[in-house]
């Protein structure tokens, strides 16, 4: 078995595509219509285009329990997932300039530095730099 895909629930796939490509600089990899206005929509990192794909999963739009779960995580401020960056501080400053809102500003936690931002699609996302 291999890890090729991880998914993240988003309320609106088009809005998520815009945020994840224009602000986070991910690249669209696969885009296939799957009915009901939903798409099999995956992204890859620009620096690792053969790496795992991120599926922008439309479950919260169609499946009530998914919406409830996503909202509960969001209300507690818990990140849905995390991405690695070279430098948390500079990425934080870059994203703030683009209007991204952070719930946790850069903070050192032992051997890591992290920060948490709102992806505007119903999730908090953590960025991490290993020190």
């Amino acid at each position: 078995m291999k890890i090729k895909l991880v998914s993240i629930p988003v309320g609106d796939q088009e809005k998520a595509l815009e945020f994840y490509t224009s602000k986070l600089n991910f690249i669209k990899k696969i885009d296939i219509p799957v009915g009901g206005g939903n798409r099999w929509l995956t992204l890859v990192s620009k620096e690792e285009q053969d790496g795992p794909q991120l599926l922008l999963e439309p479950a919260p739009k169609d499946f009530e329990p998914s919406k409830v779960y996503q909202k509960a995580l969001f209300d507690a401020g818990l990140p849905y997932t995390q991405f690695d960056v070279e430098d948390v501080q500079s990425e934080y400053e870059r994203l703030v300039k683009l209007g991204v809102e952070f719930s946790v500003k850069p903070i050192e936690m032992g051997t890591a530095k992290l920060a948490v931002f709102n992806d505007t699609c119903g999730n908090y996302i953590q960025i991490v730099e290993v020190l």
Partner: protein
Amino acid sequence: MSLYEKEILKIKEDIYSNQWQLDTVIGLRNYIDNNFNEKLNLNLFSRIRFVSKFHLLRLFKRYYGQTPNQYLIDKRIEKAKEYISAGVSISNACYDVGFESLSSFSTLFKKKTGYSPSEYQKSNFR
């Protein structure tokens, strides 16, 4: 303050309050990052950080979840991938990242990436 922020601060206090230990393992990791192509071993690490080698091993594993040697191997393989992608020959990549034997390099490369070095080289020049 969100539940998550409270948790972060609690973990920081409970788990990561020993700054000396943190400085020691972060320093060792930086040393490995900057000298991965040299001949490295636990005795050397122990001398550099002024810590007994078994204590250092335990500390590194506790904070990074890997032994220094496991981390070093991952670093070397990652660098070898970079070099091979940039057009460096397989044997040069092997020695440039600090391996001493081509056969152990090939075995480890295949184990870690799923490809032999030559398969990886071909897939990158397709």
